């Protein structure tokens, strides 16, 4: 074994150890850093689900309101027709004139 290799061997061991130990420390650090983010993401997911539920309910209510509006509009149109008819009758009555009680 050459003296150079003998000298370099501990250094290489040290380098490999340092690198390996450094890699382990990075994973833990990352996990530590990720934990609050993950928690925040979970919170946001929950909030998003709630918002989604609210939006769906709002959509359902809006659809129901739209249906009611449509039926109300139809009813209004029917009533408009009836009012028009009554107005015509009243006009006809007015044109004929009321009969006095002689």
């Amino acid at each position, binding site marked *: 074994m050459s003296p150079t290799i003998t000298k370099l061997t501990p250094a290489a061991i040290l380098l490999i150890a340092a690198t390996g130990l450094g890699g382990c420390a990075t994973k833990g650090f990352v996990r530590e850093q990720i934990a609050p983010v993950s928690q925040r993401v979970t919170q946001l997911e929950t909030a998003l689900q709630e918002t989604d539920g609210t939006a769906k309910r709002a959509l359902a209510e809006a659809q129901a309101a739209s249906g009611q509006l449509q039926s109300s509009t139809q009813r209004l149109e029917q009533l408009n027709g009836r009012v028009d008819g009554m107005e015509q009758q009243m006009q006809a009555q*007015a044109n*004929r*004139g*009321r*009969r*006095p*009680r*002689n």
Partner: protein
Amino acid sequence: MIAVLLAFAAPIAAMIAPAPMVAVPEPPSPAPVAPPPAEGDAPLTRSAASARVADWFAASNDNGGLPYIIVDKASASLAMFDARGKAIGDVPVLVGIAPGDDATPGIGTKNLSRIGPAEKTTPAGRFRARYGLAAGRQKILWVDYATSVAIHPIPPKSEKSEQRRARMLSPSPDDNRITFGCINVASAFYRKSVRPLFQKKGGYVYVLPDIRPIEEVFPRLRVQALIDRTAP
């Protein structure tokens, strides 16, 4: 002997006699027409109630600068005044056959044939009268359009049996209740006096009550009574 017979006969006669009848209200029927007036009869005089109302409305300017008419159903007469309160004339009228001061709700839309005898009243009160269209495209002076009461001449198509003209000419007011609720005046008076005065802006018609107190129908008359009492 006769006294004994009479003593027995009296209770027997009482038993045979018919029981007293219970009075049943009957629908009003037109009073018979009084004979026509003799020449030289006194002109139509205004009743005390009519004169009182006329004085009050002239003094209080209740007519709002419009001509007005006071109809007294009791004396079957009409007093007409111009916008300044000057008397134009007092004439006989025909009024509703049924005594009463109110009108049945909804009577204005009923056909004449469907109006009951007791409904043929001329309602009392203060009315803003205006000319307006009536059946047959004729214009008449509506006293109360809601109850179809108007002032107009005797209808030419009225029943002959009603003898409206004779009733109007008769001196007695008792036979002047014959209409369905309208107020009939002589045709000439309508044409020469009522129409010219009322055609443009209309006016007021005060119909005095039959039954209700006059102060109830015209509440402002209470004020007059108060003033009269407090006056020195």
